[in-house]
């Protein structure tokens, strides 16, 4: 029998899985054992989950922390790591050595840079504008402080997740985003 720890939103589940004598698989979630079959269709991210009274189509793709699953058009992001559940937004929001990093929330072209290194910025003031799909998107500061590093120039392409600039914070903790 194998055990897996899964997290879906605020819910953490210890799932048990075992092979039945006739070679099928059954899974125990929250004390309920269920016979299950899962088939992948061709080389696609489409899977079919066959239950006793229902056949469910599932789109599933791997992510670094688990699986990104869609059923009936709704997303289910499931973490399968063994560590403590992460607080949402934790990695991107936290200060490292008193510095806050603005990461690109989408891939786009840097349309405008409103600040220079050394500039003082308020919390919520606009730092950069990124253009994607003809829309101009303002990126604002999560902290008040001083621009300590500027990694992009106007006209450059910024990949999602890239560090765009850093702000040395005045306070030790950023406020929680809305």
């Amino acid at each position, binding site marked *: 029998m194998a055990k897996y720890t899964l997290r879906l939103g605020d819910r953490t589940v210890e799932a048990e899985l075992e092979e039945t004598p006739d070679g099928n698989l059954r899974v125990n979630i929250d004390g309920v054992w269920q016979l299950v079959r899962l088939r992948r269709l061709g080389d696609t991210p489409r899977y079919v989950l066959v239950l006793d009274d229902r056949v469910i189509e599932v789109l599933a793709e791997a992510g670094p922390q688990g699986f990104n699953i869609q*059923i009936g058009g709704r997303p289910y992001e499931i973490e*399968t790591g063994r560590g403590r559940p992460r607080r949402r937004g934790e990695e991107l929001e936290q200060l490292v050595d008193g510095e806050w990093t603005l990461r690109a929330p989408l891939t786009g072209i840097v349309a405008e840079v409103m600040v220079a290194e050394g500039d003082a910025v308020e919390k919520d003031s606009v730092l950069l504008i990124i253009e994607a799909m*003809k829309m101009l998107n303002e990126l604002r500061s999560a902290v008040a402080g001083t621009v300590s590093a500027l990694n992009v120039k106007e006209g450059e392409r910024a990949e999602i997740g890239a560090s765009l600039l850093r702000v040395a914070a005045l306070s030790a903790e950023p406020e929680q*985003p809305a």
Partner: protein
Amino acid sequence: MFDKVLVANRGEIAVRVLRACRELGVASVAVYSEPEATALHARYADEAYCIGGGPAVESYLSSEKIIATAKRAGADAIHPGYGFLSEQAEFAAACAAAGITFIGPRPESLRQLGDKVEARRIAEAAGVLTVPGTTGAVGFDEAPAAAAEIGYPILIKAAAGGGGKGIRLVTEAATLEPALHLAKGEAEASFGDGGVYLERYLDPVRHIEVQILADRQGNVIHLGERECSIQRRSQKLVEESPSPAVDAGLRERLGAAAISIARQAGYENAGTVEFLLDSTGSFYFIEANARLQVEHPVTELVSGIDLVQAQLRIASGEPLGLSQADVRLTGWAIECRITAEDALKGFMPSLGQISLVSEPAGPGVRVDSSLFDGLEILPYYDSLIAKAIVWGRDRGEALSRMRRALAEYEIAGIKTTLPFHRELFVNPDFLAGDIETRFLERKFLPGLAEGADGNAALLVATLLSHERQRGGWGGAQAAAGEQRSGWRLAARLGRSTRGGPWRNTP
């Protein structure tokens, strides 16, 4: 009819035009930017030429490169689609100078109607009411006084605009300048022209537009109205024809107004006249779009007329061949625009590779798209990736068809507006047709109820975890995408579980 047509566009509308060419037996030429060599429109055409880099100014907006390519390929006409060069009078004139037919209105009409202020003068001359506004483009200096004279709330609109780009609502003088800044920037990015003008913001109103067809022989007909009040930040998301608010009498008045504006402008080819309709049944001209509209399919479904084929016939000199009395509008059609935006995260653009797409089909469903498995959604272009369109005998049948079509529509790898549409089509006010242009912000709070299939998702994750442990990463049974794009998915997963300083500018 033409021998060979170059389609100066990309995405779903390029494919739409190429389909019409193929049905008419006309040879076709595509142009594509460097990152779009594998795009459907490039594959669909008989010939395809790379004309430059990803940014539109280097490719799809380069009138010189496009005309040079048309000459190289021996095309005798150019269809501009919508957006890009479709309403640029200079481009139409350059085509004519090169001996190539521009499939659209004459350059003079484009110039007149493209200047939104001049367009209003034409409407007034045609005896149609207009919305109060500035008589010309305004700069940062004149704007505050002009806005005060018109009276807040006001709209800033791109003089060269269309498609909701470069439009900003300003409710008070204090926010006028930053809004002007963003609107001009978007207008510049979208149309290569940063000119904007101001207009009184009427509220509540419906956005109603009338499709017209005009031939070179002077015949002008209308094909009824489209209801386009479902908008988010002046971007249309859902369109239908007919409008729940328009009866036969009003339809006749709207149609007559649109035709008289077209005649006043000496208009030729397909076009759209946009009005605001208030609750008393009065309507006001806002602008004329001298091109094919994104939402043209709803009119095609109720009229039975292929508008793109009609454009080609008209541009090649053929008469319309049907009078207003021949136009018979049947049933009800609705379109949903599917964009690469995360409807659950403030419509944030969502880029990446589409790992799977499966489109709705069956009775009464039409899809206009250029999606395929493996398509990379690029940052350079408009976020519209597909249109789901349905027809029903009445509005109820059309609504239930769209609900069914939206449930069938599957896209994996990027986020889209499908969740928004699925929720809209169960909203009681929308279903009752009780909408106006600010319906979305006033009455519709998007937000996804928790899915009912959490347990099934956990079962799947358990089985996939088990397979992964047994088979190692990348085995035949591993989850799709593990090898190929793990790092990219990592980035996206990280993003989609965060909050942050991000927001779309208003």
